[in-house]
């Protein structure tokens, strides 16, 4: 591989400032929405005493999960020694930090008492996976920060493999922790499963890769720097493998539940008669977010096209958000099984499917988290040398040949 030259982007164009302004406006709206929700109390949101985590959590957990996945590109380069990914490693680290910051911002701003963040930082109950996650998130930011330093400072390059290995291990533990937030909930039919942790890890691979590809393509198109098909082809093939892996673990999750009679009620709810949740599962998560992108990423007619790769990534992200919505909100909508064998009713909505309709402020806060992540990346690539001047095929992989059917298949199975 030829020597890679990293350069800051110029960032002086009118389009650059329009983009920054656009993100800034979305963040301002999110902050205004937060003020509105915190000032009036959460009764102005769609959240209730039945659905206690709403759309902000969907975005927050999605971004946090995607953050660790975005780091995979760097890990493939430094941990698994795949040199073709090395030019992408710094951007991978930046996107990882940015996504985590975006997700955490949403999580914190949706607290009942965000002003007590200091309490969360100074009082720990170490039996709580939530408390562990506070360490895992903060630690991730520090480790990836150090990792970026090792990669971007020439003198420190020799340590980048070791730190990269630490970052890779840390990110696996982090996503295990995020999945376990749900896995450890013994009370609810929808959670309480060890498979939540590996499922979240695979989801992170998929969501993080889709976001990374979009940011990569966006920044190269925006700056006019060459982005060859060698890089894109590898990334999209990996994305396809990750999407398939998520499909597999989702299938295992539901098949295991279907085998146990006690879970039939919940499975019926998600798979058959759960209304919006059933639609989100089959229509958005499975069809739109998994099967169609898989087809697009491997079909000879579309697999080489930047446009179709972009569409695939957007679909994977849409499917991911739907999956997160189903897990977080669908899981709470399904009633607690307090009295098996009984029909239950009360003034507190026992025994009924809980109602939730997201409010505009919640959506604004969630989207604001995405904008926080993207503005960090947009500014980051202008301030520091995250992006290679060129990712042309001749530089990344001189031996690369556009994929024939056989090579695409062998890469996909590799």
């Amino acid at each position: 591989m030829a020597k890679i030259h990293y350069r800051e982007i110029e960032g002086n164009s009118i389009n650059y400032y329009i983009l920054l302004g656009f993100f800034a406006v979305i963040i301002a709206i999110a902050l205004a929405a937060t003020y509105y929700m915190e000032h009036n109390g959460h009764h102005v949101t769609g959240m209730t005493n039945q659905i206690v985590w709403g759309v902000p959590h969907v975005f927050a957990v999605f971004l946090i999960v995607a953050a660790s996945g975005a780091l995979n590109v760097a890990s493939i380069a430094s941990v698994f020694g795949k040199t073709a990914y090395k030019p992408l490693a710094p951007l991978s680290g930046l996107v990882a930090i940015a996504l985590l910051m975006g997700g955490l911002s949403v999580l914190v701003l949706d607290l009942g008492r965000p002003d007590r963040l200091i309490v969360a930082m100074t009082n720990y109950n170490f039996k709580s996976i939530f408390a562990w996650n506070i360490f895992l998130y903060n630690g991730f930011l520090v480790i990836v920060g150090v990792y970026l330093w090792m990669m971007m400072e020439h003198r420190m390059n020799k340590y980048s493999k070791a730190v990269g290995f630490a970052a890779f291990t840390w990110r696996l533990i982090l996503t295990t922790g995020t999945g376990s937030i749900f896995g450890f909930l013994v009370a609810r039919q929808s959670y309480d499963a060890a498979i939540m942790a590996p499922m979240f890890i695979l989801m992170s691979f998929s969501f993080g890769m889709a976001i990374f590809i979009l940011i990569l393509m966006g920044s190269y198109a925006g700056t006019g720097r060459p982005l060859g098909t060698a890089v894109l082809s590898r990334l999209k093939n990996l994305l396809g493998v990750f999407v398939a892996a998520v499909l597999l673990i989702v299938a295992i999750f539901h098949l295991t539940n279907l085998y146990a009679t006690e879970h039939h009620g919940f499975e019926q709810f998600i798979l058959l008669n759960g209304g919006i949740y059933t639609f989100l599962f089959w229509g958005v998560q499975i069809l739109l977010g998994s099967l169609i992108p898989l087809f697009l990423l491997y079909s000879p007619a579309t697999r080489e096209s930047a446009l179709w790769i972009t569409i695939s990534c957007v679909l994977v992200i849409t499917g991911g958000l739907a999956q997160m919505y189903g897990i977080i909100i669908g899981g709470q909508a399904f009633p607690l099984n307090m009295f098996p064998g009984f029909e239950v009713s009360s003034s507190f909505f026992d025994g009924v499917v809980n109602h939730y309709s997201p409010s505009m402020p919640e959506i604004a806060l969630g989207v604001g988290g995405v904008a926080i992540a993207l503005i960090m990346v947009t500014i980051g690539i202008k301030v520091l040398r995250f992006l290679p001047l060129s990712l042309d095929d001749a530089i990344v992989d001189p031996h690369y040949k556009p994929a024939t059917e056989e090579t695409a298949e062998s890469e996909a199975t590799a």
Partner: protein
Amino acid sequence: MSQTDDHTNNDQVDNGHVNNDHVNNYRRKFLGQLAAVTATGALGSGLVLNNFAQARPADEAVSSNVRYGLLIDTSKCGNGCDACVKACNDENGLQGFDRPETDAQWIRTVKLRDKSTNRTVSLPMMCQHCEFPPCVDVCPTGASFKRADGIVLVDKHLCIGCRYCMMACPYKARSFIHEELTGQVQGIPRGKGTVESCTLCVHRVDKGETPACVEACAKDGHKALIFGDLKDASSEIALRISKEASMQVRGDLKLNPGVRYQGI
């Protein structure tokens, strides 16, 4: 001291034995003052220490030799009776905002219908004051805690309103405060953005009284709720549980709730 010594020496030289009395007087006075200062200091620090002792968190003073609980005999629950719910709301100042989905409910009446036999049962459901409470396990800051006497509470100063405890509770016992509250009852801390639940009327229990729901039920003549110390073999609740069948809701989770039910 040097001043005193000088003074004493001069007195001795100039005034003979008369001066010795003066010296003794002076020493007496000095020692007296010293003793007074010492005594004041000792007493003062004692008072301060005593104050510290009184300011210790209430849970540290609570004994684990006691475990408070409730026995609820659903067969005695009056049809359509909600005396316990009303008493709880009055006692703890739980005013509603006419928004059932977000209004706090510490205790609620749950109606059950056996799907196979159509038998119906009505019962009060509230925090079950588990021995192994999942809400306490998951709380990141330790705001959810269990007193030594088994009462599960929320520390309103530590709760950040993350609502993870509400996700974890198998009994839907907790409420999040969705709006600004005014006119709270003294001694019942409540506030916007935090989570709360039945305190087993800890403020009454600490005074040796019974929870408001139990009192109201007895007043109405149902006596469906019995409050007491599960560890005291001679208490009514312990005697009843040792002789009569009772169950724990979601006993499969092995949380050992302090609230037991009969007649479900």
